[in-house]
């Protein structure tokens, strides 16, 4: 019988705040982090709305207590801040002998510095220290080094579902007995590289995004990092850490449709949610809330909406996209939204789908327009879908409920 997987630590930095509590406060106060570009030097500065983490790299270094002995990309700094919080939350340092893994998702890795110094890389030796911070593994290894982790680690890149797949892989490794505990999630800093890439795809909204609204017009990109500490039931007996909730289901499926577009009927989304639901032992009517991928693009919201209606026939649970709060944190979105879903579960709150006013004619259900409090919640689902049709879904359940 594979072990149950308990969530015992959370760490979260986004445009809304630098830790879980600050993010929760912003959510409760309906404070969106979407605004103009402050940090990145880009021609798109006045054109796009994004969600940036307020701190500069120097401030992040200080906040994380890092010395200037190594070079850090913003991607790494954000990851370190969130992973540190999750790790300290679960007090893992006092438990030697526990095999701790680190599974991290990222899409552009250390591109933030690479794009600044690319000409130097080509012509001179002045920025050589940033050559090896460019790849995706660099942030993962520095997060591990900073926490003193030496166990299994790897990095996943499945675009916007990277962090969800990291949580899933970590859980599978624990169930198979390869790890006792894992830190899993993702980190992403905004870069000119992907701002321009998404812009070339013409899927960025200049206004705050409006997921599931008939007038939706695209994404606001965001940055940040989020990590969960998870441990097996047996390990939890040793650590005695407070159980926040249980990861009861996950599913990964592929659209196999188009590199950047979702299929009109949401095949991948449906399969990912269905797999997660089947595994969890829950049924469509016991899911209390879905934190949708809900990017605000024409394509995603229609495809995801149809998949939700197909799986939750006749009775769609509360649904919202929280991207109007955080922006689309791409490879960190999966873990960020898992945490937002868990915060809802803990506090009995359905987060609102902000900026919604016009129902989509193609869908029967409406996203949650207002924040709903004092809801008796037991089961939440969090969806993350990526380019290439890499679709994943996670299900968390309140602890102690059978």
């Amino acid at each position, binding site marked *: 019988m594979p072990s149950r997987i308990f969530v015992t630590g959370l760490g979260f930095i986004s445009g809304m705040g630098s830790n879980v509590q600050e993010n929760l406060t912003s959510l409760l106060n309906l404070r969106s982090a979407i605004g103009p570009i402050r940090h990145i030097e880009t021609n798109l500065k006045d054109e796009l709305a994004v969600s940036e983490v307020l701190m500069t790299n120097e401030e992040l270094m200080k906040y994380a207590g890092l010395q200037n002995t190594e070079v850090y990309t913003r991607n790494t700094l954000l990851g370190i801040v969130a992973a540190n919080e999750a790790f300290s939350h679960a007090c893992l340092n006092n438990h030697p002998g526990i095999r701790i893994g680190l599974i991290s998702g990222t899409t552009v890795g250390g591109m933030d510095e690479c794009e600044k110094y690319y000409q130097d890389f080509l012509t001179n030796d002045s920025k050589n220290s940033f050559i090896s911070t460019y790849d*995706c593994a660099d942030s993962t290894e520095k997060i591990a080094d900073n926490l003193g982790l030496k166990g299994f680690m*790897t990095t*996943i890149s499945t675009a916007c579902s990277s962090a969800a797949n990291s949580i899933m892989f970590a859980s599978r490794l624990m169930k198979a007995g*390869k790890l006792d505990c894992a830190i899993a999630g993702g980190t992403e800093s905004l870069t000119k590289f992907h701002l321009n890439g998404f812009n070339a795809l013409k899927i960025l909204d200049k206004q705050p995004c409006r997921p599931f609204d008939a007038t939706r017009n695209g994404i606001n990109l965001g940055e940040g990092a989020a990590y969960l500490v998870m441990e097996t039931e047996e390990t939890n007996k040793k650590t005695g850490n407070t159980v926040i909730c249980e990861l009861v289901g996950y599913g990964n499926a592929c659209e196999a449709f188009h590199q950047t577009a979702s299929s009109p009927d949401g095949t991948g989304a449906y399969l990912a949610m269905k797999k997660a639901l089947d595994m969890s032992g829950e049924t469509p009517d016991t899911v209390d809330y879905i934190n949708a991928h809900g990017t605000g693009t024409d394509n995603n919201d229609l495809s995801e909406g149809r998949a939700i209606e197909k799986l939750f026939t006749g009775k769609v649970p509360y649904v919202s996209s929280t991207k109007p709060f955080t922006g689309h944190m791409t490879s960190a979105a999966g873990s960020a939204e898992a945490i937002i879903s868990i915060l809802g579960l803990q506090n009995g709150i359905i987060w609102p789908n902000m900026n919604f006013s016009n129902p989509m004619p193609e869908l029967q259900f409406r996203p949650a327009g207002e924040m709903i409090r004092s809801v008796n919640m037991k089961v939440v689902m969090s969806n993350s879908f990526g380019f290439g049709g890499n679709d994943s879904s996670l299900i968390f359940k309140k602890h102690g409920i059978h």
Partner: protein
Amino acid sequence: MAYINGIGIISPQNTLPGSDFLEPVVEHTSEFLKSIEPVYKSYIDPMASRRMSRLIKMGISSAKICVQDAGIEMPDAIITGTGLGSVEDTEKILGELSKEEKFLNPTPFIQSTYNTISSQIAINLKCHQYNSTYVHRCFSLESCLIDALLQIEEGTAVNVLAGGIDEMTLNHLSIIRRLGLWKREAIRNLDLWSSKVPGALAGEGAAYFIISEERTDKTYACLAAVETLYKPESTDKTAETVVRFISENGLKPEDVDLVLMGNNGNEEHDRICNDVIEHALPSASHMVYKHLCGEYHTVSGFALYLAANILRKQFIPSSLPCLPKSPGKLQNILIHNHFWNTDHSFILVRR
């Protein structure tokens, strides 16, 4: 534990379908060992392939070769490992961004996204199952194999398509050469072990495997286990890990018949490879192979192709001399690789 029931490999050697096992050996004299590419229209619709960059074409083709080799219709999961993804597309964008921040063609951006290879394979095979991509230096392919073994163990898949792929470009090589670890000039690959030019010799390649639950008449070898080791404190520690890994799989050090070593021409790197094996498996025959394929993040794919074929054919090609002598039997092969002594990996392959 699972079985390798199909292989598709594009490499700097004669490894395409129909070629004899590494015969004749291919000599390279350019800056890095470049893959010998197939006729892509045999595997990809020419209309679609026109817009694809080299890495994507290599990925889809090697995956298709692999699936055909295994004689299966559809894998139950697709997993790719890549250290750097499409370098060519990334360079295109960085070039445009650093001249004038204006790019209107989204294709290089889409293709630069690391998961493009796995998802293009899925689109080509119309496979809606589990799909993932690992991007962790010399753990990239190893993570895929670990995931594949888990899928088999969990019973969620019967046949997993898992592989590693990386490409090199002259531009990228000129950048990483600044780090002092790579050869600063071209040499003849077959002279790698006697060359006076310091540093690693760069290469590239794509290798996909069908990892299956059951042994069939297609089976090359058994993929027994995969282990990773991060930043070992010492060579002794690495050697201890090797011995523990072997024994966890029911073997004693003397049961390992052959070690495929990760030497790449960089003196310090190679010393670590030599020391680890000398400490852990003093009686095993060993060989080096990177003169055939060069060094890259997912190079273990080439090594796994070698190990699987050596075990199936019970034969070692002449381009791979064994030291101190040829093994008396070919039952158990260990592949050791590392990335500048940071990411070590061990793959145990059995007959």
